[in-house]
């Protein structure tokens, strides 16, 4: 009896390990309907703000390269660099700013020089009814206005402090978020009177719902232009394919997709 339960127990353990092994191997690449021999999977790590545009570019890339599946992983740029440093199998990395890309190049994990492919600037967003009456960057310093910004540690917050320095206006935010999407959410929910986000974030939210928020562009935003670089990752198993993807991002077609989303040319 004990012998039997021992065998059953060991069998269950081996089975569980085998299952765990299988599922981690697939990682979601299968089941995407790719057919034929010589299938290749290109893994692209991209900043969260690139979600919509990179999905479109990757879709076109798959059309142009038979048998190639592009797997996209979106997160904060710093997160993605940390993941690559810990051995995540990325072939291409697109960062939301140059300092974060520098972390990757400093670690010797970039194959070649990063290519700038887009720019982004800040804009003011308020709830549609603009409860605090914001019309300019200076208005954000109104004592009663509840303003939410990104924390200085993250790219959008760094841009915010640059604009503050350039304008001499000191903001007293009620919250400093770690992600630009959290700033956007605080404004669209009406919790905050105003927020500073990227033009592309505002445009994306307005594309989904024209009454989501009010976008107020301000000239001083030009003081802090964020540049997005992309690079093939060192040690990629598909080095050639990776550089082709980088070329697709910087191509005319790629630029059109990015411009439609509100990104500027580098």
């Amino acid at each position, binding site marked *: 009896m004990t012998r039997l339960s021992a065998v059953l*127990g060991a069998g269950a353990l081996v089975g569980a390990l085998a299952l765990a092994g299988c599922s981690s191997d697939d990682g979601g690449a299968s089941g995407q309907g790719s057919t034929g021999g010589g299938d290749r999977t290109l893994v692209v790590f991209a900043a969260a703000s690139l979600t919509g545009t990179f999905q479109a570019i990757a879709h076109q890339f798959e059309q142009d390269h038979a048998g190639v599946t592009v797997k996209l992983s979106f997160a904060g740029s*710093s997160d993605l660099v*940390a993941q690559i440093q810990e051995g995540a199998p990325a072939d291409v990395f697109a960062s939301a700013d140059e300092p974060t890309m520098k972390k990757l190049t400093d670690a010797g994990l970039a194959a070649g020089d990063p290519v700038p492919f887009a720019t982004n600037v800040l804009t003011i967003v308020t709830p549609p009814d603009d409860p605090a009456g914001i019309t300019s960057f200076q208005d954000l310093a109104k004592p009663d206005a509840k303003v939410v910004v990104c*924390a200085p*540690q*993250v790219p959008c917050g760094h841009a915010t402090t640059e604009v503050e320095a350039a304008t001499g206006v000191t903001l007293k935010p009620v*919250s*400093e*978020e*770690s992600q630009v999407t959290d700033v956007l959410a605080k404004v669209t929910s009406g919790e905050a009177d105003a927020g500073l986000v990227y033009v592309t974030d505002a445009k994306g939210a307005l594309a989904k719902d024209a009454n989501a928020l009010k976008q107020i562009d301000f000239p001083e935003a030009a003081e802090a232009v964020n540049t997005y670089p992309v690079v093939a990752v060192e040690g990629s198993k598909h080095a050639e394919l990776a550089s082709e993807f980088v070329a697709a991002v910087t191509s005319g077609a790629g630029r059109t997709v990015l411009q439609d989303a509100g990104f500027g040319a580098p």
Partner: protein
Amino acid sequence: MAPRLPWWLVTVAAVGIAFVVAPVVVMATRGDWAHFWSLVTSAESLDALRLSLVTSAVSTAVCVVVGVPVAVVLARTRFPGRSVVRALVLLPLVLPPVVCGLALLYAFGRRGPIGHLLDDAGVSIAFTTTAVVISHVYVSLPFLVLTLEGALKVRGTGPELTAASLGAGPSRTFWLVTLPSVAPALAGGTLLAFARSLGEFGATLTFAGSLQGVTRTLPLEIYLQRETDPDAAVALSMLLVVVAVLVVALVHSAGGTRGFRRGLAGGVAA
């Protein structure tokens, strides 16, 4: 003498324990220990630690005050839809914290029904420490309720019925019989609620925001520091581990839950 256990059970248990312990140990080895002290005593870190301890203590107190009646009602009364109410009360336990935060935002936010009423009364919760406490209570309450309710059910109603038959009123029975009998579970539930508060992240971030000294608790500070200074993030993580271990150790060194029960029973009897 303890009965002999099957070898495979012990093996899986060892794997399970290693799985829980190993990541924390590995993280400790990655820390910049030479600068640990300066990293955890920066103004930002101390503000975050202070805020975390205060909000967790306050929310734990609220959890006890509100959670004990909830647990007793769920365990001791029968009414239509009781099981549904019970499931709903325990919902924050299984919901992702960010969903809890969204729910709180829609209810207590400036444009939510409750938040709107409060706003009219001149009370603004958004982006305040109160919002942090509300998030903590929301996610921690089920831990206390579940622990206490389970104990009450196992305990049965015999002693209460005896007390009532001897002439004790409902309040007297509650204070002198019901509560002392589940004191260990109350202590355990309180500890769990405090620990859950200390680690709360998602609901706080979604509902309360993140500002140094006001809403940025230790987990939020760790999340932010990780963007630019992974060493500081690891140091703060280890600080949180130390605080958590201290909390557990404190409860055990204070005579464990049995001492707590005796103290409570003695205090009430005296």
